[in-house]
């Protein structure tokens, strides 16, 4: 175990060093021949996407209904973010590496340039390499999504032996149509909100996970999303179902090339936890944030929701949000089952001209439901960082409890931090606690660290990592160290 941790430390150090060499090392593009749907959005484009994926009629109908609905909706304007109007006809809704066909059967069929891309990102797609690489290290199964399609999913056979389904969304539609049909849209209905509805119409690929009754998933599952093609939106859809008594820990990571245009990312994630099931969902979001002047960068408009459908079920969101020009996301929990539990742990860092409006919703429906929110917002540069959260306790949620803690840290004097908590309580015996603090990174702390030998940037990273520790500790161990390195990179240039 110690040996494993040490080699992880070493590879992480190497990764961190590489990160330091280049402010955003994920900014490269991959030259592969791509196939696009015609530019713009209309019914034909949706039919094109659906046909490309060989989808059944019911799914095409589902998409088209969402599209009709979307046409009647308005883009939300309540978030504390500002951006020029998006021209939805001026982008591609589907881009796929050409060789892909109906999806590669083995890694040998994947374009070597794409394999090289993931290698550069530090994501192993070859199982042998994973096994050889870090002896004794915990295995992590990976689903790699490149623009609109999944290019590889690892360790599927080993997972299948315990009955776990871990596949691309497109494949799940073909192989497990009943499961998909039963749960798709059951947490985030196609009518939910502007971006979720858009996603329902045009979603391309994503990950599907099903953990059968009583199974503890034998390894960490993860998906790496990579946006490569120009002028292309990414609309993936993730659906995770933990059946009774099941457990799974899942992590998603995201990167994109540096481009001076804005790319739209409108994903939907749905989690379903049945009786006694537990889902731990972690995100390390590092989409291209744009340059210091706010040119380019990803618009990250995402709907994530977990449904604690069963009694005593447990869903926990942990997010480290460092990238994107704009982040608009509120991973939420519907605490439907009695005694169910929802958690939200968030670190959101904004620097340069980035804007983040993020938080959570905890909807208490069942008896004795509990929720816990720990949000750490860090603003640097000229950025703006808003925590927006709702705790709603319904009439039947007797004995519901919530604890919320929102801490904001300001680095420098030109940034903004805002906390917007909403509370609705309809039952008299609910117990809610809310704590909020705003602090400035103090000159005294910086000097203390520098006196001991750390430069201003190292000192800032150390202090910010300390500030965010309660949240970072919730990440799976393999990723916690990476996240700390990422915190450092995200804050570069924030101190004189």
């Amino acid at each position, binding site marked *: 175990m110690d040996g494993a941790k040490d080699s992880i430390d070493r590879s992480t150090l190497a990764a961190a060093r590489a990160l330091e060499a280049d402010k955003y090392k994920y900014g490269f593009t991959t030259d592969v021949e791509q196939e696009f749907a015609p530019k713009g959005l209309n019914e034909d484009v949706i039919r094109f996407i659906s046909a490309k994926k060989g989808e059944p009629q019911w799914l095409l109908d589902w998409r088209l209904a969402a599209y009709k609905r979307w046409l009647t909706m308005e883009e939300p304007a309540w978030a504390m973010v500002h951006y020029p109007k998006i021209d939805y006809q001026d982008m591609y809704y589907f881009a796929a590496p050409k060789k892909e066909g109906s999806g590669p059967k083995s890694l040998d069929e994947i374009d070597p340039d794409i394999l090289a891309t993931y290698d550069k990102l530090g994501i192993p797609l070859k199982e042998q390499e994973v096994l050889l690489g870090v002896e004794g290290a915990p295995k992590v199964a990976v689903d790699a999504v490149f623009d609109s399609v999944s290019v590889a999913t690892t360790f599927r056979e080993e997972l299948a032996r315990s009955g776990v389904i871990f596949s691309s969304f497109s494949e799940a539609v073909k192989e497990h149509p009943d499961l998909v049909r039963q749960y798709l849209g059951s947490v985030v209905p196609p009518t939910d909100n502007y971006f979720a509805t858009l996603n329902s119409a045009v979603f391309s690929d994503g990950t599907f996970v099903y953990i059968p009754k009583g199974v503890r998933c034998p390894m960490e599952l993860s998906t790496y999303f990579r946006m490569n093609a120009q002028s292309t939106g990414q609309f993936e859809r993730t659906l995770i179902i933990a059946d009774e008594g099941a457990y799974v820990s899942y992590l998603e990571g995201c990167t994109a090339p540096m481009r001076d245009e804005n790319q739209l990312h409108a994903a939907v994630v749905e989690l379903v936890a049945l009786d006694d099931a537990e889902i731990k969902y972690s995100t390390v979001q590092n989409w291209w944030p744009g340059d210091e002047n706010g040119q380019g960068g990803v618009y990250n408009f995402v709907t994530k929701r977990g449904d604690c459908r069963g009694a005593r079920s447990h869903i926990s969101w942990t997010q480290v949000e460092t990238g994107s020009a704009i982040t608009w996301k509120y991973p939420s929990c519907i605490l439907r089952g009695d005694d169910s539990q929802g958690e939200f742990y968030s670190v959101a860092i904004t620097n340069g001209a980035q804007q983040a409006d993020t938080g959570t919703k905890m909807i208490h429906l069942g008896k004795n439901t509990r929720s816990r929110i720990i949000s750490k917002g860090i603003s640097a540069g000229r950025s703006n960082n808003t925590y927006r959260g709702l705790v709603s306790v319904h009439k039947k949620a007797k004995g519901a409890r919530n604890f919320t803690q929102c801490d904001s840290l300001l680095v420098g004097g030109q940034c903004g931090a805002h906390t917007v908590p909403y509370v609705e309580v309809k039952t008299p015996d609910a117990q809610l606690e809310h704590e909020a603090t705003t602090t400035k990174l103090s000159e*005294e702390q910086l*000097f*203390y660290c*520098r*006196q*001991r030998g750390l430069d201003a940037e190292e000192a800032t990273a150390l*202090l910010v990592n*300390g500030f965010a520790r309660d949240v970072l500790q919730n990440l799976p161990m393999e990723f916690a160290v990476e996240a700390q390195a990422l915190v450092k990179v995200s804050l570069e240039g924030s101190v004189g």
Partner: protein
Amino acid sequence: MLDIKNLHVKVAGGGEEILKGLSLCIPAGEVHAIMGPNGTGKSTLANVLAGREGYEITSGSVCYEGEDLLALSPEERAAKGIFLSFQYPVEIPGVPAMTFLRAALNAQRERRGEEPLSAPEFMKLVREKAALLKIKPDMLKRPLNVGFSGGEKKRMEILQMAVLAPRFAILDETDSGLDIDALKIVAQGVNALRAPDRSMLVITHYQRLLDYITPDRVHVMAGGRIVKSGGPELARQLEAEGYDAYAESAA
């Protein structure tokens, strides 16, 4: 080793002069003590030597091992062996003392072109030094200085000094707030570091500490400069007579 000449310092952005032509020379291998009334500029001197921002140096020079110390950043000075034990150690929430100290040591080593210490080597070093200072291993896991008692904070400063092994250490009232046992332990820590190529500047209000750390020289600071220097006996004299005699020269 350290040569301060006619140093004039005020708070940046105007205000009164705090250091008013201070001169002080500390040869290698020597321990010097500075005593002086409250508000006379002792901590200001310590801060300026360590490179804290917010001060304006209007004239004078500080030469450290033949180099212009004032031209260096705080972290460069640290890597070159300048260490300040703070009068008021700062809390670092969420960063375990062990993590902090390792980051500091390896940052210094990197700047000096040395290899970083591996985790096991580092642990061994810290445990050894902590044991000498009677610091419980549990304390090293706690966020640095957060919720530490006054005495624990001071002891932690000395532990950092022991691990970082500086060439020139400034102890700003490290003895204040220590009980008698802790005082002895801290003094032992300081004495253990005494070496021919290492110097120290000990700022204190009390003879007590100097009973355990016998200084080579004692300086009286008043009104922003050194007004009298002598041997260890000067400290005892001050303890008996107070600073009244120097009020004149301070004004």
